[in-house]
């Protein structure tokens, strides 16, 4: 082999190494990081409460307002700056798609039983995880897992106001606290 070519190849490997390292070291994030700084849902509630209290009883506008409040709660904003970052996030697994042994698509939620108890978590506290070609073997319902992968924000198909998080997972492991 041409020695010059070997040199170039070795150099390329060296130069490529730091980038690869950066890829492998994910930023460990918490559920708090998924909420934009300064976002306070209780402020939202206060705002609506003030308006509602000025209305007479049984005013249909009150019901409409309650509906708007619910939507605002459901369409909680996402942190755009996290998009395309490689992150590691831990939470509970809610199976969406699987083959009975392993799951290939699931929701990651911050607390146990998020799909049963009232009220459901706001949309920025639910992360859709796709495991791609390497499905994760589940031991039992609501396994606590740590997911590593690229975080993206995704717009809903027919409601442009709401966005949600998605992780294309490269690694899913049982969480060890």
């Amino acid at each position, binding site marked *: 082999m041409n020695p010059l070519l070997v040199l170039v190849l070795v150099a390329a490997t060296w130069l490529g190494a730091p980038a690869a390292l950066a890829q492998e070291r994910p930023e460990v994030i918490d559920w708090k990081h998924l909420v934009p700084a300064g976002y306070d849902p209780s402020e939202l509630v206060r705002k609506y409460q003030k308006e509602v209290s000025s209305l007479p009883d049984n005013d249909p506008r009150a019901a409409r307002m309650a509906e708007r409040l619910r939507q605002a709660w459901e369409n909680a904003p996402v942190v755009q700056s996290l998009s395309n970052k490689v992150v590691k996030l831990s939470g509970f697994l*809610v199976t969406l798609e699987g083959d009975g042994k392993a799951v290939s698509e699931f929701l990651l939620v911050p607390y146990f039983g998020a799909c049963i108890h009232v009220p459901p978590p706001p949309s920025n506290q639910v992360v859709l995880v796709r495991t791609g070609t390497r499905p994760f073997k589940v031991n039992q319902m609501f396994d606590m897992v740590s997911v590593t992968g690229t975080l993206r924000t995704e717009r809903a198909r027919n409601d442009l106001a709401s966005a*949600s998080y998605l992780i294309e997972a490269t690694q899913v492991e049982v969480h060890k606290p």
Partner: protein
Amino acid sequence: MAILALAAKSLLNRRVTALLVILSIALSVVLLLGVERLRTQARAAFANTISETDLIVGARTGATALLLHSVFRIGYATNNVSWTSYQEIARHPRVRWTIPLSLGDSHRGFAVLGTSPDYFRHYRYARTRGLELETGAIFDDVYDAVLGADVARELGYRAGQEIVVAHGAVDAGVSRHDDKPFRVVGILRKTGTPVDRTVHVTLAGLEAIHVDWQSGMQIPAAAVSAEAARRLDLTPRSITAFLIGLDSRTAVFHVQRFVNDYRKEPLLAILPGVVLQELWDAIGVAEQALLGVSALVALVGLCGMVTALLTGLNERRREMAVLRSVGARPRHILALVVGEATALAAAGVLLGVGLLYVTLFVARGLIQSRLGLWIEIGFPSPHEWLLLAAVLLASVVAGLWPALRAYRYSLTDGMTVHV
């Protein structure tokens, strides 16, 4: 080579015992692998039946009952969902598509499903696969029917044929909707899911055949002809359940909450993936127990082999002595017995795998007719290879004991046997 021929001849001389040993190992292998195979295949078949559906909504009942009834046609619905509730939930801003499902009637043992064209557009199975037509088109007219692949194959139906739907889940020939037959317009490609065993008709068609039914029976005096029924309002009053696809999968908890809190009617929304997982967790214990029992059966099979070898040794002391006299060393005797055990186990494993595939071929028809699930028959999985290797290894280890006995005998007996 000569010693191998001798060993084979010796084994042939004891062929009844040898065959029984092989058979018992084979049967235990069938059980061990069969339990494992059915377990994984049944799970895969169940999991592959419904994909990309975010929620299933039905009248309030058990989550598992709703899933089994609406998707797998196992069990029955306790109540219906009113058409107005369905319409209202379908209008929820996050809902992208819905598939109404109306069950309860049957055609010669196959379920009749009333639905909308959206069923063929949005239903997904095996992760991302959609329904495809083998021949014909999807239903358009009130009295059109689209058949699943197995319905058409087993009953020999072709497009253009007329079929009569029976009232209720069992067609006993007494309460039939024979005044309003359906015409087969399309046949679906095989999916390996309960869709194959379903007759799909329009919701309006189901409504039409029940138009002149009151209080659970057809009123002859009020009979409405098939043509006259077309002119009536055929909007269904209720459906059994419906599937929901959302614009974003993360919105699923909110819409689930919306349905479960729905004031006008007690409804239940479930996430199919979660309920299937619950089902696996519930039957996981039984599966483990079954696997444990089959492992014990394998152990019993091996014990049988060791017993046969040990009792055989006494009879074979003279044989061993003769072998020694023609120059066999004690270690040859040892190798002979271990080799025999391994050969017996290997033959047992081979026969067992063969029997397993025969059993699977027979059982899959039965499983499909009972559950509508198609069992794939493929090569053994890595886990199954491991189980087979474990049986073989265990037999070699088990064979060591009689082999050591034989070795000691041949040392002490030498060429003359003092029995």
